[in-house]
């Protein structure tokens, strides 16, 4: 139990460090956001006035304290280009990205685990070979190209969905989820292929171990041996991968949102990067950092639950 508490404290500290680094990184870069907004022709008076409203006339340490105090309360300041609070700007977009990521994660598990079991049970058979080749190819498909291919085949040719026909979850949750299936699939497939090959490797190694033979000799069926004995042990290294995959999927969903025209964090992040709208960029990076760190924490805790031999808190 103390291990978990230690980990939670560690994660909170990490989030704090990341938030500080993000602020410093954007505070030291050259360029004046006020000039960027008004143009180089602006009068010094107008620039000074704008800096005042943007809060840029204060010293960097003062701004830092103000910013951190705001972040703790969930207030990230105001956007330079949208003239509205950042929190308001991103609060309805964050759930879209989170749902897309979780959706992809579930799909990845749903696709990879059964296939790995089927392939491992029929090791070296034709069905195993076919799955192996498919997984090797799928692994190499970048999600955004996978998304384009899915749009082409399932959207434009087979008319299973209307490309660009995104419906907000607040309007119609069912249509939202059916539309999100396709982008989630594009993210999940390459990761699922990697998870498959890891799990497959684990299962085929485990089945050769003594305890598997013992289980067979006690009269268990192949199915029982796989599900009750091998799967749990083969899963342990895969859990680490799942944790990393979850973090990667957050990044992946930012890219995929552009392919499927989904108004999540990705689009607003890209626009803000191009507009040099730093408060928005900072806020989104901190949000994503929190997501990544929390997902890592959950994986760590899960790890301890599955394999109690791993002493919590130590590496």
């Amino acid at each position, binding site marked *: 139990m103390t291990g978990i508490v230690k980990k939670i404290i560690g994660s909170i500290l990490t989030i704090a460090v990341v938030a500080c680094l993000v602020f410093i*990184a954007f505070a030291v*870069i050259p360029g004046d956001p006020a000039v960027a907004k008004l143009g180089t022709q602006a009068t010094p008076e107008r620039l000074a006035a704008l800096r005042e409203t943007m809060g840029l006339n204060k010293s960097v340490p003062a701004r830092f304290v103000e910013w951190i105090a705001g972040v703790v309360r969930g207030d990230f300041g105001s956007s330079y280009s949208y003239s509205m609070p950042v929190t308001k700007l991103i609060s309805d977009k964050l759930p879209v990205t989170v749902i897309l990521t979780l959706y992809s994660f579930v799909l990845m598990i749903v696709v990879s685990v059964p296939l790995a079991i089927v392939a491992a049970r029929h090791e070296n058979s034709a069905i195993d070979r076919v799955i192996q080749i498919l997984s090797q190819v799928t692994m190499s498909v970048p999600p955004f190209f996978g998304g*384009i291919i899915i749009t082409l085949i399932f959207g434009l040719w087979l008319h299973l969905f209307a490309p660009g026909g995104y419906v907000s979850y607040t309007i119609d949750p069912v249509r939202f989820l059916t539309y999100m299936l396709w982008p989630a699939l594009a993210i999940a497939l390459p990761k699922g292929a990697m998870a498959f090959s890891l799990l497959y490797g684990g299962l085929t190694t485990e089945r050769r171990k003594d305890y598997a033979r013992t289980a067979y000799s006690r009269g268990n069926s192949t199915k029982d041996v796989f599900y009750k004995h091998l799967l749990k042990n083969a899963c342990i290294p895969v859990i680490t991968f799942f944790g990393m995959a979850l973090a990667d999927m957050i990044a992946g969903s930012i890219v995929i949102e552009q392919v499927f025209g989904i108004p999540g964090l990705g689009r607003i992040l890209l626009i803000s*990067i191009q507009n040099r709208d730093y408060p928005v960029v900072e806020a989104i990076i901190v949000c994503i950092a929190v997501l990544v760190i929390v997902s890592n924490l959950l994986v760590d805790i899960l790890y301890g639950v599955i394999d109690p031999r791993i002493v919590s808190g130590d590496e």
Partner: protein
Amino acid sequence: MSKKKNRDFNLILGSILTAVTTIPALIGLLWTPFDPHSMDNSLKLAHASFMHPFGCDNFGRDLLSRVMVGSATTLLIGLGTVMIGVIIGTFIGALTGYYGGLVDDIFMRFNDVMFSFPSLLLALVFVAIMGSGKMQLLFALGVAFIPSYVRIVRAEYVRARNMDYVKSAKLAGASDMRIMFVHILPNIFKILLNSVLIGFNNAVLAEAGLSFLGIGVQPPDASLGRMLSDAQTYLFNRPGLAVVPGVTLITMVLGISLIGKSKTVSGK
């Protein structure tokens, strides 16, 4: 038995796929059938023909020439990224792994935080700070890939520092630098090579991803990611515009990962 044959097959197929994509890219650095930047309105979205085997894009530019130049850009950025990552990563990993201590602890905490972030996202942050462009992209990706190499190299140095050959080198009076880079480094080449291949693939995909988002390679320069994002508008009428650069990208990545999986390289 069939496994051994299978592994060699990986190397052969991987080499063929890699050659199919890299040779045209290398030729593209020196010569292309058409100027990849010259626009011709009469050839706008032209179908494949004898002169233009892949057809032309929405500006009437020859797709084959653009894929050749674009793969070269992608390959070079991938290569540069891996070089930055490996050289700096090996240096940091060697020092922290070999010496250990408090500096090592602090570095590793920091490194773990960096490592837990998807490299695409890290690169995105760097691009946000430095602005977009080919050089910025190279730097951003290079820095984003350092933590993964630090991790691998450090683990090997921690293992090596108590081995007999290192102790005997120490007794023989070799300096720390000499032990680190003359004695230990050659022993971890094999592990490093494997992670270089994986890292190269990740770099290629990250470059394509960032250029796809429009914050990597800037027009008119061709890059596979950029071509894919431009092709989206014409997906229904000219799927080839997306399929050609996409398949090139997949072939490149698949080839390299098959080489990495082969018996000769992975040593398994």
